């Protein structure tokens, strides 16, 4: 099962390597990881989606993260009300006959076209995991050429 947790860490070189190293050394899986500075420039904020078969593994992940000296706080969003978003950029095939169809889909998900080429467009979309999933399946029919995503951001 996937769990979203956030970690505040010292904004120092090597901290990302410590966190990533911990996951690989102990055999845990990270599905996504997003890192950025916070209002306090000495602190970075990491949102990570981790895979844990059961509660015990999730507990171990949190405890092991907490053991890192550079980790300041950990928030587990599993049972906590929170807002999460992810930004996705998609390159899809485009022909003018599909214009209306595509635009109606984009409207539904508050997504927009941010770049156009002859036969493709790049779409920017934002939303929670379900919305992104639905958008992707709606756009599948036109042929998605490429996709990049930021990984989930979460805040409580």
């Amino acid at each position, binding site marked *: 099962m996937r769990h979203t947790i956030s970690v505040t*860490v*010292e904004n120092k*070189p*090597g901290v990302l*390597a*410590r966190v990533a*190293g*911990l996951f690989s*050394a102990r055999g845990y899986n990270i599905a996504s990881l997003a890192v950025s500075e916070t209002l306090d420039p000495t602190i970075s904020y990491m949102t990570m989606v981790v895979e844990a078969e059961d509660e*015990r593994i999730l*507990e*171990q992940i949190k*405890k*092991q993260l*907490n*053991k*890192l*000296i*550079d*980790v*300041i706080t950990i928030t587990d969003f599993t049972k906590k009300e929170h807002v999460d978003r992810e930004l996705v950029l998609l390159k899809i095939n485009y022909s003018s006959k599909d214009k209306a169809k595509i635009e109606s889909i984009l409207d539904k998900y508050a997504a927009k076209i941010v770049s156009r080429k002859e036969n493709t467009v790049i779409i920017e979309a934002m939303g929670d995991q379900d919305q992104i999933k639905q958008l992707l399946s709606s756009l599948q029919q036109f042929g998605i050429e490429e996709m990049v995503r930021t990984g989930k951001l979460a805040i409580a």
Partner: protein
Amino acid sequence: MKGANILIESLLKENVEVVFGYPGGSVLPIFDALFDAPLKFILPRHEQAAAHMADGYARATGKVGVCLATSGPGATNLTTGIATAYMDSIPMVAITGQVKTSLIGNDAFQEADVTGITRSITKHNYLVKDVRDLARTIKEAFHIARTGRPGPVLIDIPVDVQQQDTEFVWPEEVIIRGYKPTYFGHPGQIKKCAKLIISSKKPVIYAGGGVISSGAHKELRELAEKIKAPVAMTLMGLGGFPATNELSLGMLGMHGTAYANHAIMESDLIIAVGARFDDRVTGRIDAFAPNAKVIHIDIDPSSISKNVRVDIPVVGDCKHVLGQLLEEIKTSCDTTAWLKVVEGWKKKYPLVYKDKKRISPQYIMEEIYKLTKGEAVIATEVGQNQMWAAQWYKYTHPRSFISSGGLGTMGFGFPAAMGAKLGCPEKTVFDIAGDGSIQMNIQELATCVCNKINVKVAILNNGYLGMVRQWQELFYKKRYSYTCITGPDFVKLAESYGASGIRVTKKEEVRRALEKAISIDNVVFIDFHIEEEENVFPMVPAGEAINRMIGGMA
């Protein structure tokens, strides 16, 4: 003040008495500052030994051990010693030189990414790129190494930082916002523990290295005697509870006593104190102590519920938590019937060995115990020698048994014994070695002679890498694949270094040889020619429940 001098001043501020280190290109400024520093300095013959010496010193004294090496190969040679200390939660500060900051990442001569390499084998590590951060970093490193669950901390210092000038400011206090170890147990949890303990009929205390590192041996003894519970120890816990006490079950686990393993398996309550349910202790995990509730006291929350399901977790320092428990527990539990059962197991399954043609290694350990009256510090290598030393010497004091438990590092014992001897010069210090292990750091004979480090090395010489041979005998149809090992003439070798050597081939000579070794004011190798294919028993085959032992029972 120059960075190198700041390092020395900081070590003095931390009350460091001895540094184990080896010079090299990237630590020249530090060595220049060491030249007239009021610090004892020990020059080993291999950096790995420097780390093990610092480790042995820390285990014997409870103080932080300090080792030092140059960049690249110097630092990578330390890593086995750092990993050894990490697995056994030993406080250590390792200082390494690094190529100058402008060359980092350029594959410079003797460059290695040491903070990268040691990230997973240190409690924390630092690369100091600005001399103004140096004093604070050293203060933090010592603080992290010795507090909470202790462990090694590495400081990597580029050579130009060692040469830079700045004002020396020793910080008053350490503030690390992400690091606040819990020392006292939660009062609610303590109450729950007390209730469970009092209602228990068949309790067992399972004591590990946390008892030693937190200095909880007095509290442990008080608790055991108050609730009348037998005490089983892990390899790391030996000495945490006196083996001579009638409540002692000795060591449990793979080569533990049968009565310790039976007691754990049949118990209705396990009180785990500073232990981590390692696979060498639990055996087959789903068959482990099926009817027992588990109280787990540990300063490291991640040790709790890692391997076994725990009913009452208590995060805290063993000494503090046991103190709290002792206050909370007003009455004793009724364990009379249980202790009778345990006594029955002790009578039925004592540790035994049979004398064969050659000297029994167990007999040598018994003689060392008798001769030193249990007052020696015993370091070990890894393998059969380690298990015989654990089984056949009665440890009655904390910090009297020094062994690489977690990592199982061959070559650890000799340098660790040297570190222990430097920390406790008044004690007789033995390294119990095999002829395989001793050859892994045998070069330290020179360091012993040069610094008059008077340790006694008992080589249990059977011509085999004995523990691996034992597994090959029992589980690989006696196919002794590359476990037959030759060595030098240990007596002549010792003598060539200026040390003393004694060869012992007969049982009758054992006692006299030991007496002689102890009386000689020099490092002594005692080459005991022991029974070649003697096995360590009892033994729990890997993956079996721990009450399914084979061998060694009368």
